[in-house]
């Protein structure tokens, strides 16, 4: 019985870790080298798009088709580091990565 529980826990942790890895591997990995944090970008998206649905949609559109016009980064940042490359993730992984990003920085339930 104990073995089964341990196995389930291991599988669940592994799955979660793999999802987290999608975000960590594909987003944090590059952004940690930039002077502007992912949190700052998140709040810029929030400032422009307001709701969860609209923020996620805007992120998805931008990651699939990065354009300077659609970028929320400053001109200086773009000139120095260039526009981010088009995502290589499939739709499902991209959705998972964006969901993790939303959950990490969302303001719901955090305001006191």
């Amino acid at each position: 019985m104990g073995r089964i529980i341990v196995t389930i826990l291991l599988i669940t942790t592994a799955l979660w870790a793999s999802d987290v890895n999608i975000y960590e591997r594909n987003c944090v990995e590059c952004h940690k080298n930039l002077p502007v944090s992912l949190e700052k970008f998140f709040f810029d998206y929030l400032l422009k798009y307001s709701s969860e649905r609209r923020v996620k949609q805007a992120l998805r559109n931008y990651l699939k088709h990065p354009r300077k016009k659609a970028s929320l980064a400053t001109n200086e940042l773009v000139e120095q580091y260039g526009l981010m490359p088009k995502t290589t993730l499939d739709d499902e992984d991209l959705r998972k990565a964006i969901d993790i990003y939303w959950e990490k920085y969302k303001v719901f339930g955090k305001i006191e």
Partner: protein
Amino acid sequence: MSVSNVTATGINRSERITLIRFVGLYSFLVLMILILGSTIYFKLQKDLMLQTKRLELEEYSKELIDGLKLLHIYFDHYRTYPRNPLYRSAIYDADHVRIFSTLKHPDGVQLEKVIYTTDGVIQYIHVLDSYYLGTKYTVVEIDDDEKWFTAAWNNILLYGGVLLVVFLAAGVLLMRLFLAPMRNAIHLLDRFIKDTTHELNTPVSAILSNIEMIDTQKLDPKTAKKVRRIEIGARTISTIYQDLTYLALNHKIVSQDRLIELGPLVQERIEYFKILGESKKITFETDIQPGVKLYIDSGKMARLIDNLLSNAVKYNRRGGEIFVRLRPGELLVQDSGIGMEEKQIREVFKRYKRLDSGVGGFGIGLSIVAMIAEEYGLTIDIRSKKGQGSEVTVRWDA
């Protein structure tokens, strides 16, 4: 004899019906106008109050947005929502999802409006251009002291009450103005009848008494026939005179009710009308049971019988028949005349109603019958078929 007394019953009844209908319709319209006016006034007062409060709420909203801006910038350092004891607030995102709220009634928020009252609070909605913390809508709420509400209702009740009285007074005045021509016309007609009645009395009495004194046996047949015709004419006028006198003096004469034997009275009246019937070659058949009695004024009973017989003669065909039957609790007069339709039967008791303008009279006969019947609790049943004659039955508790 007073004219107003004479006509009081007739005019007042129709006046009362007209009055009730007019007052009903007029009151309904006045109430509609007052309700409409009050609604507009109430809404204006509410809008005025909301406009006044809006200035205050806009200030609170600006203060809230400033707080949100700071919170957005320094969210990684502190996360305390900007609060103020003067108002309560809430923030919503572009998809109307509530981000945070200190409202009393957060579920009733109407984000499509600007300012409104609900459940004792006033809520003001402001739409942001920059969505701090994702906020597109800020809602600022204060308590509604409802002073404006009380003041508005007091004014509506006070001015509405005054207006209602003014409208009703104007209505009564208008009604009097509109009724005046009708009242005058009826007064004129009744006055004319009254005057005519006076003028008829002496000559008719003179004619009848002198005819009775003539010994027709001594006259040659042609002259005797002419005298007979004069008598018929005089008796017709006399009957009309009796009716008009009854109408004119109805409210002045004190009834002398007593238990009377109806048989002889009915027979006497039939004999009287036989002479009138002769001109149309109408034959009378009777079935009178002796000993039938009724507690009534004999003069009024005579008027009742006369009018039934008079109509039976008047509306009968030439060579027709009239059948009169008297039984305890019932007097029936049947003719073989023109008859009536259903609709006409319902109208025969109206004063001045004449079914056939080709025959004489004023249309007051059955109106008198109805008045007497009402006074003594008699019921009148009319059965008639167009072209086959009519049957009038007077019933009473034997």
